[in-house]
């Protein structure tokens, strides 16, 4: 027990030393389909646009419908940050992507990755920001809805 003071003093010094070092942490990219900032998703995006234009070329009557993209607001909370990017064609939301989607910790990454596909499906089904959301991902849902609403508002302005 003679060495207990060494251990205790060491603990205090260690805590102080590590707390004194400036923070190195940076948010992590959330790997979900349509997160433009995350690597590997851009190819799929171009591909789908291409298919869309080929399809429209075969239609005879109407002039080819141009797909437009609008971005929503950047929303952040303590768990991360996201910004929705919508692809709208003929007044319909055909694709939901993100210009940025980061999470601050591993647990949030997990929640985001499991909830975002559901949120996207709900959006395309509802064609509005009035979606059911995902229980257990309250913060992600709220942030997503907020950015989505901003994008829809912007799209209506430009229409």
């Amino acid at each position, binding site marked *: 027990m003679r*060495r207990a003071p*060494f*251990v*205790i*003093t*060491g*603990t*205090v*010094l*260690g*805590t*102080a*030393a*590590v*707390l004194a070092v400036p*923070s*190195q*942490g*940076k*948010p*992590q990219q959330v790997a979900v389909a349509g997160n433009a900032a995350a690597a590997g998703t851009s190819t799929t995006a171009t591909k789908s646009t291409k298919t869309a234009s080929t399809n429209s070329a075969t239609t005879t009557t109407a002039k080819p419908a141009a797909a437009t993209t609008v971005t929503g607001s950047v929303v952040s*909370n*303590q768990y991360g940050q996201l910004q929705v990017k919508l692809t709208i064609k003929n007044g319909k939301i055909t694709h939901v992507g993100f210009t940025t989607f980061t999470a*601050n*910790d*591993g*647990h949030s*990454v*997990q*929640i985001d990755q*499991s909830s975002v596909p559901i949120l996207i499906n709900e959006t395309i089904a509802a064609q509005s920001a009035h979606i059911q959301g995902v*229980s*257990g*991902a*309250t*913060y992600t849902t709220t942030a997503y809805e907020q950015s989505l609403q901003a994008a829809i508002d912007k799209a209506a302005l430009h229409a």
Partner: protein
Amino acid sequence: MSTAERVRTATRYRWTPGDNPRSAAAPDRRHGDAVSWLIGLGMGATIALGLRAESLSALHAAGGPATAAGRMTGLVGTYLLMVLVLLVSRLPALERSIGHDKLVRLHRRIAPAALVLLAAHGALITIGYGQAAKRAPLGEFAVILQTLPGMVMAAAGFLLLTAAGVTSYRFAKRRLKHETWWVIHLYTYLAVALSFTHQIATGTMFVNHPLARAWWIALLLGTAGVVLFFRVLVPIYRSVYHNLRVVGVYEEAPGAVSIILKGRKVERLSVNGGQFFQWRFLRRGIWWQAHPYSISAMPMPPYLRITVKDLGDHSASLSRLSNGTRVAIEGPYGAFTRHAASGRKFVLVGAGVGVTPIRAMLEDLPHGTDVEVIVRASTPQELVLDGEIEALVASRNGRLHRLIGDRDHVPIHAQALRDLIGDLHERDLYICGPEGFTRRFITAARRAGVPPSRIHHEQFAF
């Protein structure tokens, strides 16, 4: 080996007073101090990691406080787990300056705290995440197990740790074979490894923090390296290098046998009287049992000797060991040596077969050391190694006190000890014997004025 040679070996061994072929030098206490500092600093760094992962907004969010507490308990609990492993890793810096038995006692004292912290970690994180997700704890527990990486492994690891903890309580340990307990304990290494994935993959302080992650991985690998080196590689190397074999088994007293071993370069074993090895007799049926026995004489190259009580399922079969049996060793371990003394005057106390380390230590004391020896037995016939002890005490001009008789006739209290050795309170006291005897003797010695720091004893009943 011929019969004549065997007898010669034994004779030489019994009667030549040792000339200390290689008595180990005093351990450097600063090594133990340095390890203590490092353990403290590591604990500080771990706590700081937990603190840094927090933010006020996260604390105010739903489930924030529970999650934060869960994170901290997990970090500190895991760090303590590493310390627990390190304490019994046979790291020489700890082993020689603190002593094996004290390290084991420390290990046993800290272990419940680590287990409680890890249990709290699981519960608090489940509650915290559940509050954030608006789910009941049980449901959230299922979700965590299914969705977060490494969680099933971590849960399995916790169960293994719990098993090791529960089987270590006295009531359980008494009912278990030592080897069963040992195997269950061995699985704690697996438990530590299993729980690692979820720490690195989901821990807020590690995800995206390469420095923190590097420290944590280094902590795990460093601990694993120390264990692998000192608990596995060094014993294997020493066993192969010294290539010890049984060359003789002799009865010393009713129920006590000496086993003589012969090996290569025994003089290179740096050992002190009072230290012990873990002995593994490589014979079918008992090779997987390792048991701690003190050397009962300083090494006399190429020979080593242990003297064991011929009782119990393990020791009983030792008296039937045949010559040529190979022996694997781990050690030497223990701080029950002359180096633990703070003065130059000694009292060595041995009861029953507990005189064996006393016998070796007596030989290890420098000539001219002021020494008094007390041996304890129920009958004169049960005195073990009595002739050797008498000769060694005489060669150091010491005094030998034999306390013979049953407990009622041999009182052990402060006044009796003072009558026996007048300047008892000025001496370093070394005691080795059955637990009850040791406890009574220590109590009496303290009452007789011996400061606790001068009372040295080692417990083999782990």
